[in-house]
């Protein structure tokens, strides 16, 4: 149980670390600097992937989030509408028959920031997620599934008649 708590630190835990002294914070900073070579993997484990969410392009966001390329797989089933009348609320879900799934993410290629949502799937959790996303305009939606140390994907174009990002 402690291992899981450590994997997903809450704000309270972070606060406690800060309160325990500047020394601890300095050490943490050094650790992150040393891990700078593999920022995506280090960040993927606990911290909110702020940088990945800021990327404009799908390719950059995926690289930052997972640090590797993805390959299309027919074992990833992306369910999204052909046409979304309201780009503000597009129901999108993914399921997969792949084993050892550790993470799932959704990328909307043409959005101002491509990465929409990233999910961590601990062992014992069913590798399937349904959510509702905003789409600025007609775009490819990419579902990414990280399984067994590899990154698989499924892509589908969703046509949007009214955008959902203020356009």
């Amino acid at each position, binding site marked *: 149980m402690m291992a899981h708590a450590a994997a997903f630190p809450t704000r309270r835990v972070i606060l406690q670390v800060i309160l325990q002294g500047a020394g601890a914070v300095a050490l943490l900073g050094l650790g992150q600097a040393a891990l700078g070579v593999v920022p995506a993997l280090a960040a993927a484990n606990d911290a909110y992937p702020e940088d990945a969410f800021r990327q404009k392009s799908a390719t950059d966001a995926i690289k930052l989030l997972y640090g590797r390329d993805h390959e299309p797989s027919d074992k990833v089933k992306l369910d999204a509408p052909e046409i979304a009348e309201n780009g503000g609320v597009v129901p999108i879900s993914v399921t997969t028959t792949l084993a050892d799934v550790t993470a799932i993410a959704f990328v909307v290629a043409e959005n*101002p920031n491509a990465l929409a949502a990233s*999910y961590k799937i*601990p062992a014992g959790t069913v590798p399937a997620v349904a959510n509702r996303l*905003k789409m600025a305009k007609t775009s490819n939606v990419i579902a990414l599934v990280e399984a067994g140390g590899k990154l698989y994907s499924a892509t589908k174009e969703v046509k949007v008649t009214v955008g959902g990002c203020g356009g």
Partner: protein
Amino acid sequence: MASSIRVRAIQNGDVTDVQTLIQHPMDTGLVKDAKGELIPAHYIQRVSFEHNGKAVFLADWGTAVSKDPYIKFAFKGGAKGDDLKVSWADNKGATDSLTAKIQ
């Protein structure tokens, strides 16, 4: 004040189906208000789900998640009457949490 979180966790065979709705504006920071001024970004960044204290699901969100977010997933190992805790935190530091019983 009523909680911003509505969660329904239903035991279905050996898996627990979890559906969650959270009330939140999820402002992207790209939309202008009636006066033509940009509404600052205000969105949930992280939602975590714990079953009896053990993390079963973690969501990291950008601004592209719809207003009043909906999320559905399922996990194994739950049982009727167990606690499922849902917590979120947004980019302005606001948080909320709710503990529901698995039905």
